[in-house]
C-alpha cells in the first residue's frame, strides 16, 4: 500500500468515526482541531486505525503527532 492510499484511508475512517464530512479533512490538518477531539478520543482513533490496518502502533510513537500526513507515515512504517 502506498502512503497516499494509507493517508486516504485514514481520512475516510476518521471522517466516518467522528461524523465529519470527508471533504472537510485535509492531509495537513491538525486532527485534534479539525475533528474537535481530545486525547481520549484520539485513542479511539488509534484503536480504529490499528484494527483497520491490522497493525500495532505504540502510542508513544504518536507523541507530538497531530496531522494526518505524519500519522500516515507512522502507520506506513508498520505495514
Amino acid at each position, binding site marked *: 500500500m502506498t502512503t497516499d492510499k494509507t493517508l486516504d484511508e485514514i481520512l475516510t475512517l476518521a471522517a466516518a468515526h467522528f461524523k465529519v464530512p470527508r471533504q472537510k479533512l485535509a492531509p495537513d490538518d491538525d486532527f485534534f482541531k479539525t475533528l474537535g477531539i481530545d486525547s*481520549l478520543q484520539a*485513542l479511539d482513533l488509534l484503536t480504529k486505525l490499528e484494527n483497520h490496518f491490522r497493525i*500495532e502502533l505504540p502510542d508513544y510513537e504518536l507523541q*507530538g503527532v497531530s496531522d494526518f500526513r505524519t500519522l500516515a507515515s507512522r502507520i506506513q512504517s508498520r505495514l
Partner: protein
Amino acid sequence: MDQFKGETLSWKAKDGVIELALHREPCNEIGSATIVELEKFVAELASMEAEAHALIIYSELKSGFCAGADLRELYRRSQEMAQADALKGVRHHVERIHAVMNAIDASPLTTIAAVHGVTFGGGFELALTCDLIIADKMARFCFPELRLGLVPSFGGIPRLKRDLGNAVVRDLLLTGRSFNATKAQQIGLASQVVGEGEALKAARATAAQLGKFDRTTAAAAKQFIKPIPYEELKSEIDLFCELFTHPAVEAGLRRFVESTDALPYLP
C-alpha cells in the same frame, strides 16, 4: 440488597447474575466516593452470592470502562496535608481499594469484566480481578502509572503477573504503552473480543452458560486455578507508598491536574 443505585455505581441481581455498573463521569475515575460504594457492594456481595452464579462488571459510560484512580482528588488531598499525614492517608486509601479488589477476586462467583474504550490504570486493575475479560474491539488497556512516577497500586502488577508472562508484564509496565483488544486477546488477557457495543451482551450470554454448572464445582475450580497473590499485593502497597514520597510524583500529578485535557499524561 439485590439492587442499589449510587452516585458512582449501581448493581442489580437477576436470574443468578449480579451486574455491577459503573457510571461516574467522565470515565469512572476511582476516588473516595467510588471506594465507599465499592465497599458497600462487597459488603452486600456475600449475601447475594448464595443466589447467584456470576458477576458482571461493566461501564454505562460511552467514554470507556474506567480511566483509573481519581488523580485530581489524590493530588488535592495530598496538597492539603503535611507529607507524613498525606502518606498515611494514601496508604489507608490504597489498603481500602485493595480490600475491595481482593474481595471481588476471591468471590466464589464466576466474574466477568465487560470492557470497552479506556481501561486504564485502576480500571485495568479492576478488570484483572475478574475471571474473564470480554473486550469490545474498541477497548484499550494501559498501565500509565510510570508516566506519573508511580507504579500501579490497586493490585495490578501481581494480578497481571499471575495471569500472564513476566515479559509481557514488563513491556506493559515499563513502557506505559496502551494496547488494543486484539493484542489483549493475543497475549491471553481477553477471553473474547466482540464488536463495538457488544461486550455486555456477550458477557450476559456467557453468564447464562455459567448458570448451567454446579456452583460448588465451579467455585472449587476457580479457587484451584486462581490463587490470590496476597504477599505480592502487600509488597505492591509498600512500593507504591515508598515511591509516593518522591518529588517526581508530585511533579507528575501537578502536570496532570493543571492540564485541561481528558488524559494529559497520554500523547
